[in-house]
């Protein structure tokens, strides 16, 4: 195994990292504003993939349209859940919303099974991205490069929007002190709905990106959410930057582990989590308890 080969595997890790980063970024945004962990995030990821499938099948829309429309649709659904269910439990312990979204995840998954069965639905590689390019060591699918690019771009854009724009300032303000922000004339409740919708929209986007490379089934979200939680625990729900960074890093470590000793592939992220927790209970980027 040469250095080039290893480099290629690291590169490959960036692809799974791209999904983790989008998912944990969405979780982090929602958590930052609402202090809740969205257990239905995996279900939203799955809905994103199905959104792409449905858009192609019934509206004849190509991948690029789905990339925009499916996350928006998922976001709107998220907004509906936020307005009708999650909001009611906001004044209570955040654990209630963890339970609620856990129930939601079960319901969404089973609901989709009713309509789409379990075998999976075909979703083809977008035409323009279907080839491979020769990276010297071996060939590599163009689409995977696109996934890395799109995810990185979106993550950076989200980071920029939150850190550098007036809308981002409102979100940061509402995160820090919602009551006061409201008293400054900002409709925090609408902002909260928007943030929740946006966070799950990111999960939907990850789902659309995954659709061409994995089997699109109603259960695709329920396993990735647990791994994403582990990623989030490793990173610590500290910052936007932290969630993006941890997402990619964990992707790379998992990919390397899978090659060096395949049987460990699934366990590795969790072992990593245990190790990080022993050294830093708050995760890599987490603020110490009490301050957050």
């Amino acid at each position, binding site marked *: 195994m040469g250095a080039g080969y290893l480099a290629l595997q690291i590169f490959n890790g960036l692809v799974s990292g791209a999904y983790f980063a989008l998912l944990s970024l969405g979780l982090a945004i929602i958590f930052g504003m609402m202090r809740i*962990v969205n257990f239905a995030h995996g279900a939203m990821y799955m809905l994103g993939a199905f959104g792409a499938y449905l858009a192609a099948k019934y509206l004849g829309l190509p991948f690029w349209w789905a990339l925009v429309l499916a996350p928006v649709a998922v976001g709107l659904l998220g907004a509906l859940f936020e307005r009708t269910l999650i909001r009611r439990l906001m004044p209570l*312990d955040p654990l209630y919303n*963890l*339970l*609620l979204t856990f129930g939601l995840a*079960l319901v969404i998954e089973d609901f989709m099974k*009713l309509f789409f069965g379990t075998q999976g639905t075909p979703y083809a590689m977008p035409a323009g991205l279907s080839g491979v390019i020769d990276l010297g060591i071996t060939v590599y699918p163009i689409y995977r490069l696109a996934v890395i690019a799109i995810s990185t771009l979106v993550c950076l854009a989200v980071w920029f929007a939150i850190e550098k724009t007036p809308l981002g300032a409102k979100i940061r303000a509402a995160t820090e002190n919602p009551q006061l922000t409201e008293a400054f004339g900002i409709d925090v409740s609408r902002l909260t709905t928007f943030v929740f919708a946006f966070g799950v929209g990111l999960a939907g986007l990850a789902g659309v990106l995954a659709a061409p490379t994995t089997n699109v089934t109603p259960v695709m979200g329920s396993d990735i959410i647990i791994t994403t939680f582990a990623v989030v*625990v490793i990173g610590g729900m500290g910052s936007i930057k932290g969630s993006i960074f941890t997402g990619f890093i964990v992707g790379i470590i998992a990919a390397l582990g899978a090659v060096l000793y395949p049987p460990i592939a699934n366990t590795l992220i969790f072992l990593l989590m245990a190790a990080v*927790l022993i050294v830093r209970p708050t995760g890599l980027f987490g603020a110490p308890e009490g301050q957050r």
Partner: protein
Amino acid sequence: MIARAAALDRRIALALALGALALGLLLPHVLYVGLATDIVIWALFAAAFDLLLGYTGLLSFGHAMFFGGASYVAGLLILRAHWSFFPAVAAAVLAATAIAALVGAIAIRRQGIYFAMITLAFGQMLYFLANQFGDWTGGQDGLQNVQRPTLIAGIRLDNDTLLYYIALAAAVLGVASVLRVVNSPFGRVLSAIRENEPRATSLGYRTSAYKLVAFVLSGALAGLAGALFVIAHRFTSLDTLDWHTSGEVVIMTVLGGIGTVFGPLFGAPFYLIINDRLSTLTTSPGLVLGIIFIIVVSVFRRGMIGELVYALRRRRHVEHVAPGA
């Protein structure tokens, strides 16, 4: 803080205990014995879980690791070493205790949502490890053909009804232990920590040590349930370690009522009977149970028994009880 019914009135507690016991004695006569046994086992599991959630305020989403872990330990000892009932169960409970101590020492340093996520991830880690060591655990096939062990010299547990009553006895003992712990001075301190941790700290209580002990006790009793599971079913599988199993025990406890000890004893049969019947009626049991769960979390947050206890208390002193909760 997670809502829970305040300390049970003695009379209500007695009534609930008798009700649960009556239900336990009645079950095998109205349901097939396999399901009845499952109900008893899960009721014990849920009661153990409630010791942690209801009395310490910690929501674990990884309790399958104790349940499943113990089921594998008991299963292996019976299958490979032909241990009899008591030693096998004891060893399994011990194993669950050890896992709980290990995981608890790391997880207990965080609380609330972090604790839930960490325990969830640790549970899944054990799942993958068990999947990994297929030579021992049978991997995806699970441990099959675990013969029922001997109870004491000469008596094999082959009779399902006998086994049911053994499980019932173990569950009664387990629930009684939960009650004793909850009402012990230690249990009082636990409630104090749950209600106001900084104040308890300021009184000199090392709160994380108390929480860890509660976590370990809860894990040990969940392990007892797991050991009974493998004996009752003659096999165990990765499903017992899967996070959905952790989720199921959460659902049962919430449906029954958090912090009531007795709530889970009614939540478990409710969940299992519905799931059992739905498996012949529909292909989407999760849909129905999920919707019920969402309604309970949104509207009847105290759970079935919790709402009942709350209503009875409320009738007695309407003016004092705080709104919301």
